[in-house]
């Protein structure tokens, strides 16, 4: 009885799948899915070749500081960094007084409440503060940015596929470019709308963010590195890799130790196994 029922149920599922299969195949023939512009023109990110990438990667602190400078002078005008605190900057090589100064000099102040009158206001940032958002709320962000919200950058390199390379490519020197003629020939009705910018590294090819890095030496690095557009894109990608995964170095170091420890355990366990079973054929 169970087997008969099973065969009937199996036949029913297979029959319905057969119908579905027929539908899929006939639709594919009569009404094939159209090619999309994204499919043909989206580019995979280029390799940023940073020291933090790879299985044993570590951060280059000078590069992180340069990246922070790019964030501070370029990105921070629109993008928040809400999971990172000023105090965290000590971990990329700034001293305590330097962090205090960075926090109190930060252009956007921290929202606060006046201790005596209870009135809402702002105060200077202190090291324990998170980086303040450049906009008071989402509506303000939309109003200032052509209805597109600049996303928070704390986790950006983990929130995109191949994130570090993605950030580097998306704002790198060859990202923003005129829409290719070939694309317009093939897909005449996907012209980049007004207010958006063609960028083949962006998923749907048209990004609301205007080109952030427009000229070499847009940022004057304090360590003397030449601030080419490529260098700035790389440095800020490195910085955002750190903001997304500040414990990366500790993780890699602990990982090597753990693997060695477990490998020794495996070796001993194998020896114990051989020893226990030496007289038993199995």
């Amino acid at each position: 009885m169970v087997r008969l029922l099973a065969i009937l149920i199996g036949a029913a599922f297979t029959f319905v799948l057969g119908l579905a299969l027929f539908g899929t195949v006939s639709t594919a023939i009569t009404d094939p899915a159209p090619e999309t512009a994204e499919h043909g023109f989206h580019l995979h990110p280029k390799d940023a070749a940073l020291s933090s990438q790879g299985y044993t990667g570590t951060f280059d602190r000078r590069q992180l500081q340069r990246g922070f400078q790019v964030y501070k002078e370029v990105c921070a005008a629109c993008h928040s960094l809400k999971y990172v605190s000023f105090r965290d900057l000590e971990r990329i090589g700034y001293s305590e007084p330097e962090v205090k100064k960075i926090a109190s000099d930060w252009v956007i102040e921290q929202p606060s409440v006046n201790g005596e009158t209870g009135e809402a206001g702002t105060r200077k940032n202190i090291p324990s503060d998170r980086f303040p958002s450049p906009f008071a709320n989402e509506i303000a962000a939309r109003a200032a940015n052509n209805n597109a919200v600049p996303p928070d950058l704390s986790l950006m390199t983990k929130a995109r596929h191949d994130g570090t390379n993605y950030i580097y490519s998306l704002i790198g020197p060859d990202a923003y470019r005129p829409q290719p003629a070939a694309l317009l020939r093939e897909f005449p009705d996907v012209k980049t709308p007004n207010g958006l910018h063609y960028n083949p590294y962006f998923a749907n090819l048209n990004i609301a963010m205007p080109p952030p890095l427009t000229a070499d030496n847009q940022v004057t690095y304090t360590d003397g590195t030449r601030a080419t557009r490529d260098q700035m894109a790389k440095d800020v990608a490195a910085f955002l890799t750190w903001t997304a995964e500040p414990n990366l170095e500790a993780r890699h170091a602990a990982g090597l130790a753990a693997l060695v420890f477990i490998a020794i355990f495996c070796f001993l366990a194998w020896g114990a196994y051989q020893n226990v079973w030496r007289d038993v054929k199995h």
Partner: protein
Amino acid sequence: MSFPWAKHYEPKQPLMRWLDEKLPLPRLVYNAVGAGYPVPRNLNYFWNFGVLAGLALTLQIVTGVTLAMHYAANGAVAFGSVESIMRDVNAGWFLRYAHANGASMFLLVVYIHIARGLYYGSYKAPREMVWLLGVVIFLLMMATAFMGYVLPWGQMSFWGAQVITGFFSAIPLVGESIRIWLLGGYAPDNAALNRFFSLHYLLPFVTAGVIIMHIWALHIPGSNNPTGVDVKSEADTVPFHPYYTAKDGVGVGVFMLVFAAFIFFAPNMLGHPDNYIEANPLSTPAHIVPEWYFLPFYAILKSFTADFILPAKLWGVLAMFGSILLLFFLPWLDTSPVRSANFRPRYRAFLVALLVDVLILGYVGGAEANARNVVMGQLASAYYFLHFLVILPLVSRSERPRPLPMSITQAVLDKHAGTSPAKTAMA
């Protein structure tokens, strides 16, 4: 329990004798996983995976309980509390990565454990109850894993919860009401997040309880073995301890090696980048996909694209739940008295095809839904059901099993003497 030649617990220490009289807990352990449990001497490394699954659950409970001390189940702060675990809690990143990848490791070893059962016929008499309880554990694990994935309250958490609870709305008439009742609202929100957290904390302990019954039921007939032949004499067995504790030690080491490689060097490989974006009910991700361990079932769901009497969505949901529930009937669908696929050439060919089939379903479940992938998914889904519901009942009638060894000991001696064909040597 089990065999008459099983060793008896005889405490020599006065303290242990005293304890044994008042509460025979050491005796229970001795008989369960100590020298008091005789086990076939010919088990291969696939028999490590039960112990590994138990270890994986233990690690999940330890890391999970610790994470729960820092996590806040509220839609407004859940995502931020996970980030504070990653950044501000001592070794919080380790706990979270261990827990997230631990779920994958748990499902991985359980899938191998299930495949072992299918290959060596461990579901057959007299071990039906072991198998049934195993399927219950698998269902509990799936529910727990799903609810755990919702807790970080990222985009995939939210939209995964939306899709999975949406299955219930496929039920005619009452479906939508059931969905709203389950979620505690019209869409996943605080109410859903809170109850998922509550159940995510509860179910692992329920699972642990069912595992105790799973092991209890196993100890009545004793363990199966690669030949599938019953234990006939004391020569066929060795005591669990020290023989299999030593062998499991090797398995545990290799398991930890793989686990550590994921935690420390590729902690986000099995996750989805969208889950690092905070949940946003107003923005749907381009591709909503479940975690890798659900992909084969997701592919079955997506393969039903035609209405026939019932709407396509309902067919998909029935098929998806059916694809797991049919495992409950496996002991009665397969009538062959021969357990091990090593001696069932035809069944073995179909079973290998099933393993490939499930891998194809897994690929399709995560891939873009273009015509080629949908066709592949539909064919693979059809084979999945045909295999369990049609082929399995029929194949044992037409199949001529290869001759079985006289006993486990005989199989072992033949293997060492080199007199058996290569295929028996696998046994």
